[in-house]
């Protein structure tokens, strides 16, 4: 008879791994919302960065908006983006050159299902390299138990060989603020 397996939990005697994946900073949005999230003075001691977040906007949007990021206060047309996405009704792709920011997360609108948040995992590889342009990879999505679902593979490029020392996240135009309980956590990965 095929049965079920109850997984065993690690107990005493299992040593936690040493710290090659470290939490750098976390921002949790309070009541009233927040227009931008910034991580500044980022140390160059890591090899890669990862941002993990849950996202909801304050605007009266019935479906979702996009969260964008910029590096080192650069808001000029020094970025490019691509995406592969599914909305349930269709699968598609897009790309834009010479943009002023990088798409990095799906932001659930405030007129969408209550308590539902978009989520995102953003990887920034070799962020401190001074010989490479910077590439961002994001996996993001939101589902609201209605017609408004989306899951996206996103990529972006920042055409700069400067080390990244700051990251600014914003909701796209039309949804001014991140809503309460939205959260962005920045992690550093060592090699």
């Amino acid at each position, binding site marked *: 008879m095929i049965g079920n397996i109850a997984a065993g939990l690690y107990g005493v005697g299992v040593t936690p*791994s040493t710290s090659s994946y470290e939490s750098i900073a976390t921002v949790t949005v309070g009541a009233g919302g927040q227009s931008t999230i910034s991580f500044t003075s980022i140390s160059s001691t890591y090899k890669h960065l990862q941002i993990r977040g849950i996202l909801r906007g304050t605007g009266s949007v019935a479906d979702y908006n996009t969260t964008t990021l910029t590096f080192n206060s650069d808001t000029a047309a020094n970025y490019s983006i691509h995406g592969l996405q*599914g909305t349930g009704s269709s699968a598609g792709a897009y790309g834009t050159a010479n943009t002023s920011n990088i798409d990095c997360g799906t932001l659930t609108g405030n007129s969408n299902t209550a308590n539902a948040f978009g989520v995102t995992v953003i990887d920034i590889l070799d962020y401190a390299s001074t010989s490479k342009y910077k590439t961002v990879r994001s996996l993001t999505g939101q589902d609201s138990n209605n017609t408004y679902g989306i899951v996206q593979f996103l990529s972006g490029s920042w055409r700069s060989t400067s080390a990244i020392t700051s990251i600014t996240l914003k909701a796209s135009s039309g949804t001014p603020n991140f809503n309460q309980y939205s959260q962005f956590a920045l992690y550093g990965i060592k090699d």
Partner: protein
Amino acid sequence: MAATYEPIATTTLGSSANTVTFSSISGSYTDIVAVCSVKATTGSDEVLRSQVNGDTGSNYSYTYVQGVSAGAQSGRASNTSLILTQAGNLAIPEGASTFAPYVVQYMNYSNTNTFKTILSRGAGVNQAGASVSLWRSTSAITSIRFYIAAGNFDTGSTFTLYGIKAA
């Protein structure tokens, strides 16, 4: 110093089984990441499914995108009884030595102010994709079940939970 990203529990099947459940999950982390390598028993034709906290009701929904030889596809479902961790309805591999990888992220799993959104990506022999699922509950997730609707996970399939702790 406590690890930020640490293993919580793992199971490697020594014999085939329909379900693997992780219980009594601590609420001390920010996110839970499940890394799975799975194969179905011969004759199975099923996807990797998940439920949380023993909830078998229609309290879930999902949207997926996948790439197959025929092109890119997307679909979604509302008021379902499962978290879809593999894009679409394509089967977990059944070949002799072919195991498919999945990474399933239970974001902010212990947050009691929000519903729970689960982000996953997987790949099989002939497809790759991602899905996002919603569990409409503000309860903290304390147990995670992986299961296959028909047939079983084969011997050697592995399921590992990791906890990520934000500052």
